[in-house]
């Protein structure tokens, strides 16, 4: 089973992602950026789902650190955000996220397809 790290501070969102990913992915959860960066380095997943709005270090900053780290920089990272404004998608992709999924999650296939696509690209060595 492929492994995914979920970085999300809200317990309800973590629970929801667990339910959607249950049986499909091996999920490790982190509630903040400090724990996530330490955990990712120690135990590299196949993909990261990264919430943008986190207390302390936000998702954009975590992504910057991931991309600056030789061991982590090739990880596929999908932004999860409830800030859905026009132009956001371009902004997050330009910042270095591989993909962008908006909350609330209405159609889980959008998330699952994006995850599958980026894990496959990563396995082909197409990233980084």
């Amino acid at each position, binding site marked *: 089973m492929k492994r995914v790290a979920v970085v999300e501070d809200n*317990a*309800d*969102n973590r629970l*929801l992602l667990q*339910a*959607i990913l249950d049986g499909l992915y091996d999920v490790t959860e982190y509630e903040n950026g400090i724990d996530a960066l330490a955990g990712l380095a120690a135990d590299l997943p196949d993909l990261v789902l990264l919430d943008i709005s986190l207390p302390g270090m936000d998702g954009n900053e975590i992504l910057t650190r991931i991309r600056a780290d030789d061991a982590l920089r090739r990880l596929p990272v999908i932004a999860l955000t409830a800030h859905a404004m026009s132009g956001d998608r371009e902004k997050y992709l330009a910042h270095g996220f591989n993909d962008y999924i908006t*909350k609330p999650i209405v159609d889980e296939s959008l998330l699952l397809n994006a995850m599958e696509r980026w894990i496959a690209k990563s396995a082909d060595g197409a990233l980084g």
Partner: protein
Amino acid sequence: MTEQNAEETAELPSFDSAALERLKRFGGGKLLGEMIALFLESAPERISSARTGVTDDDAKTAEMALHSLKSSSAQLGAMRMYRLCEQGETLSRTGQLDIVSLLVSDIEQEYPRVQLWLEAARTESTS
């Protein structure tokens, strides 16, 4: 909140039961029940944190609390609550805390209705 905004918000549906059905599809009545329990546990803290942010002139605290509440409300289909939080979040970001204060009052009044609706949904899904 302006009178025009209040009217527009009032005309839109307050609740979307499709959101609850969706959660059942994702994880059955168990997930729905757990999501509702987490909401009822965290929402009062977030509303009070938004109020503290407004009172202390701390826009960032208000923005974070309203952002979290917005996201949870949307996932559970509490649409009027979602819209009020979204307006409050946006106005917190631009520092218009006098208007945010009025929105937080609306949110405080809306919460008991959301609570009743979710408690009924939870009872229904477990019966």
